[in-house]
């Protein structure tokens, strides 16, 4: 069973910017949803989502963690 990294994004209120609040390791998307909700539950979020880090495409630099992940380099 291989875990992968998911980044967690959330907004506090309707209309707020979606911001990066953390990351987690999960076996699949379904578990990532549950882990995110249970791990980052210190605030009452209006909206939360998770994104597999490998799905994030770096745009302006090639040395950030997401850019490295996109190239298949483990963090």
């Amino acid at each position, binding site marked *: 069973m291989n875990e992968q990294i998911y980044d967690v994004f959330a907004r506090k209120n309707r209309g707020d910017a979606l911001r990066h609040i953390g990351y*987690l390791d999960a076996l*699949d998307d*379904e*578990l990532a949803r*549950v*882990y995110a909700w249970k*791990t980052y*539950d210190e605030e009452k979020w209006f909206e939360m989502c998770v994104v597999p880090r490998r799905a994030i495409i770096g745009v302006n630099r090639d040395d950030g963690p997401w850019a490295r992940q996109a190239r298949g380099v483990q963090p």
Partner: protein
Amino acid sequence: MSAATTVKAADLSTEARQGLQRAIQSLADSKRLMGIRYSDWLLGAPSIETGIAASSMSQDEWGHARLLYAMLKDFGVDPAVVEHDRPADAYASVDALDQPFPDWAAVVAGIVVVDGAISVALESFAQGTFDPARTRVPKMLAEEEFHADLGAAWCRRLAQGSGEARERLKAACDAYLPTTLAWLAPADDVAGLLSSEGIMEPSPEIRARFEATVGPLLELVGIDVGSVKADRSGWDAARGRGKGAPDDESVARARGDLNRTLLVE
């Protein structure tokens, strides 16, 4: 089941009130013990995230237990006495929670079968005529959706995993189902009375609701839940469960014995 009119404890006959008190105490005790069983896995779960989820779920369960115990005030019962001053053999929790979960496969079976059954009972309760259940239980059920999602995801993982993982999960589900089905859908006068009052659905309908909810997951490990016979041996009608009791150490934790001198209610 739709409830056109709602009732409070004071509106009910003595018999119905006693039956409802059994149901609430059984749900509350199950929640309290479920929380303890989850808390055993704060450390030792397969990953940090899973441990955090177990911690969060145990807090959910204890919160739900608190709300359910508080409902007993309407029955002339002091919730503080019920929570902190009863022996193990007075607990009405689901039989499957009498002992700690021995491994992670058993935890997953516990989430799917036992926590699943408790939620099905609460769904029925929330849709019945008892007013406090209609207002307080829906939030519990919303929180339980994440427990069900976690259980379902891990159930699928283990079912598709190694032969040993699948076998352990199946063995734990096989062990928990018969008594849990008896607890969920009692075949006694109390269940009939609660059904006739519109407080809970008839037991066969509650069981059907459970089969529809949990059945597809259990099929993954080769269990046809419709063919599982409820184990009603040693049925204790006063508590609405079998004859056993949770282990003393867990009940001491449930009561908060170590902190008794610090107890402020």
